[in-house]
C-alpha cells in the first residue's frame, strides 16, 4: 500500500568540512509483516519497505536491507561524513515497486 507514505528527515543545514553529522529518518509506512490475520482468519499479505539507501553526492552512506521485523514507520538514525557542500539523497524501496525519494542540502562553511 502506498498511500500516506511521507518521509521525514533531519539533517543539519551546515557543517564543517569532514565533520561527522547525525541523520535521523522516519517514513510513515504500515510495514505489514505478513504474519497477521484479519477478522476472518486470512493472512494479511506482506507489504513492507525492503530497502533504504542514503547517498551523499552519489556516494553511499548507508544501505539497509529491511525485513518484516522492522517496526511500523521505519526509523533510522546514523552518521555521515560531509567532505563538501552537496545533497543527501534518501531512497526507500517498497515491496509493491514504489520508490520514495527525498533530498536534503547541506552547506560546508
Amino acid at each position, binding site marked *: 500500500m502506498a498511500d500516506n507514505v511521507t518521509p521525514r528527515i533531519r539533517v543539519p543545514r551546515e557543517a564543517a568540512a569532514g565533520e*561527522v*553529522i*547525525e541523520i535521523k529518518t522516519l517514513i510513515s509506512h504500515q510495514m505489514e*509483516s505478513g*504474519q*497477521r*490475520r484479519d477478522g476472518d482468519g486470512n493472512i494479511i499479505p506482506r507489504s513492507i519497505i525492503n530497502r533504504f539507501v542514503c*547517498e*551523499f553526492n552519489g*556516494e*553511499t*552512506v*548507508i*544501505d*539497509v*536491507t*529491511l*525485513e*518484516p*521485523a*522492522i*517496526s*511500523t514507520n*521505519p*526509523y*533510522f*538514525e*546514523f*552518521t*555521515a*561524513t560531509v*567532505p563538501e557542500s552537496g545533497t543527501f539523497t534518501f531512497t526507500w524501496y517498497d515491496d509493491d515497486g514504489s520508490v520514495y525519494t527525498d533530498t536534503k542540502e547541506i552547506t560546508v562553511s
Partner: protein
Amino acid sequence: MTFNRRQALVMSMGAAAAAVLPLRLSAAIEDNIAAFTGGAEIGEGGITLTAPEIAENGNTVPVSVSAPGATAIMILAAGNPTPAVGIFHFGPLAGAQSASTRIRLAGTQDVIAIAQMPDGSFVQASQEVKVTIGGCGG
C-alpha cells in the same frame, strides 16, 4: 474412546515431533547467519548491541548497533517467526559504523548482532530482551 498400545505409541511420537519444532526455528537462524557469514567463524568483541532489558511493547523496541570499522552489521531476533531483522551496509561516507532503529519482537528472546569486518572476519554480540506484549499479530 480407548487407546490401544499402538495408538498410544503413535500419539507420543506426534508429541515428540511437535517438541522438535522449536529446533527448526533455530535452524532458520543458522541459515540466516550462514547466508551472511558464508560459514565463517564468528568471534566476540568489537561490536556493541544496545537494547532495552525490558521492552513493554514488542511492536517498537529501540535497538542500536555499533561496530567501528565494520562493513556491514546484521541484526537477528532469535525468537521471531522469521529471525531476520535487517542488514546495515556502511558506505565510504558513513561517519561511524553505527545505526539505530526500532524493531518488532514476538516475545522475550535474544537479539543478535553480527558485524562483518573489512578483513572478512565476523564478530557478534547478543542481548536478551524481555517483552511484556509481543509485537507479532497479537
